[in-house]
């Protein structure tokens, strides 16, 4: 059973059979590579110790002869070495090695990324380029490159250029969350009233799923994000597109949707840059249609789901701060969704 459990743990840890790879053992970034270099020997070493211990137990059980009654009183002579070596010396050695190896791994990560940003692409004033704010239950992502007119906010998707170290400020708007993209780096908490930092450097292009790693309430498990690492040229193109305000509505239907959005309940919580909707309680929707998911990675961003989400978000994600909006007629709903889908 234990062996099976161990194999299962190893298999799930390495991401086998999962649609998307979230394994710390298949690193795609500098931070995760350091962690995996520690993780592999620990996994293999501890598995070997477990197998040896269970093997010895099995051996002892098989070697025993006669009934338990025949063995009382227990023969006490001759076993002390096992206890001295196996029970004290070996664990002290193993844990000592792991302890110092872990310290060495930790030393590779800057304790205070703000203190040394040489080689890191920063925002003006040496500030971290990206600020991530944890909300129940989604991620606000602010890009601060260039002057203040170039700054923009998006949600639940973080784009990075491959091979460039980038610092992220981590904050929380409500409770403690934890930022974890297993293939890029370890976990760092987002603590209310405090600014933490993490330095990400993707070593290859790809889409790397992340999630909140600190229980933060009802929808903790649906507080996910995607980190998209792309070649610098594509990243720059993405930046340029995200900086732009929304394109003016082009058809009668999207114009109707835009009016409904800006004058209706949507604008009480959301921003669409370039329109009167400027609230920031919910995610910035300026380029919603460029994102692949809704509701922090918990739903696909497609026509059907968008309709259902607008009408009754809590039915799809119980506990979400977005209220059900049952006041739209069918025609209004279609116009609103057509408008949202035009926000590329």
């Amino acid at each position, binding site marked *: 059973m234990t062996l099976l459990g161990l194999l299962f743990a190893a298999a799930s840890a390495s991401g086998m059979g999962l649609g998307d790879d979230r394994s710390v053992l298949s690193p795609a970034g500098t931070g995760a590579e350091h962690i995996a270099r520690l993780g592999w020997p620990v996994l293999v070493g501890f598995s070997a110790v477990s197998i040896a211990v269970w093997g010895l137990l099995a051996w002892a059980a098989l070697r025993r002869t006669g009934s338990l009654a025949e063995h009382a009183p227990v023969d006490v002579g001759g076993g002390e070495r096992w206890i001295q070596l196996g029970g004290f010396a070996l664990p002290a050695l193993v844990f000592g090695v792991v302890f110092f190896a872990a310290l060495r791994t930790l030393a590779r990560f800057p304790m205070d990324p703000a203190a040394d940003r040489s080689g890191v692409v920063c925002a003006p004033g040496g500030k971290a380029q990206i600020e991530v704010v944890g909300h129940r239950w989604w991620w606000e992502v602010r890009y601060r490159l260039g002057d203040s007119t170039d700054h923009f906010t998006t949600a639940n998707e973080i784009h990075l250029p491959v091979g460039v170290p980038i610092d992220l400020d981590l904050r929380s708007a409500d409770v403690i969350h934890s930022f974890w993209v297993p293939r890029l780096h370890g976990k760092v908490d987002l603590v209310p009233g405090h600014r933490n930092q993490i330095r990400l450097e993707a070593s290859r292009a790809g889409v790397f799923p992340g999630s909140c790693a600190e229980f933060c309430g009802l929808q903790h498990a649906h507080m996910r994000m995607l980190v998209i690492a792309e070649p610098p040229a594509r990243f720059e193109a993405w930046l340029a597109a995200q900086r732009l305000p929304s394109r003016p509505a082009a058809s009668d239907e999207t114009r109707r949707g835009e009016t409904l959005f800006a004058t209706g309940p949507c604008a009480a919580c959301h921003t669409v840059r370039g329109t009167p909707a400027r609230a920031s309680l919910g995610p910035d929707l300026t380029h919603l249609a460029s994102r692949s998911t809704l509701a922090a990675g918990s739903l696909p961003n497609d026509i059907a789901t968008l309709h259902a989400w607008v009408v009754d978000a809590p039915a799809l994600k119980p506990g979400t701060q977005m209220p059900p909006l049952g006041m739209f007629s069918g025609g209004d709903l279609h116009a609103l*969704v057509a408008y949202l889908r035009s926000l590329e």
Partner: protein
Amino acid sequence: VTGSRALSGIALVLALGAGLACRRPDPVRVAGGDPGAGRDAIAGYHCGACHVIPGVRGARGVVGPPLTGFAQRAYIGGQVPNTPENLVQWVMDPGAIEPGTAMPALGIPETQARDVAAYLYELR
């Protein structure tokens, strides 16, 4: 004794007749529709965001009506008789049948709409 035997005979005939009458109707066939492919299409277009659809994983939506027992429904959208051709049209563009409906046209091509309709008629 003869009387009771006759009675049981009548009862047997009645029971058989009732059994035949209560037998489930033959499945409705949709020309060119494949129920298996329809179920995949329903999952792919996320119809389950708004509808409860038996047999489709995660289809627990409450925004629109549940599609349980759909094959037995008399009307589609409360507007037109529940026939295969009407259903295919409804799946492709519900607004064309019921103007003002909140159900969106998802851009489902006709071949897939036929598959979807075929699956919905499996829900008896």
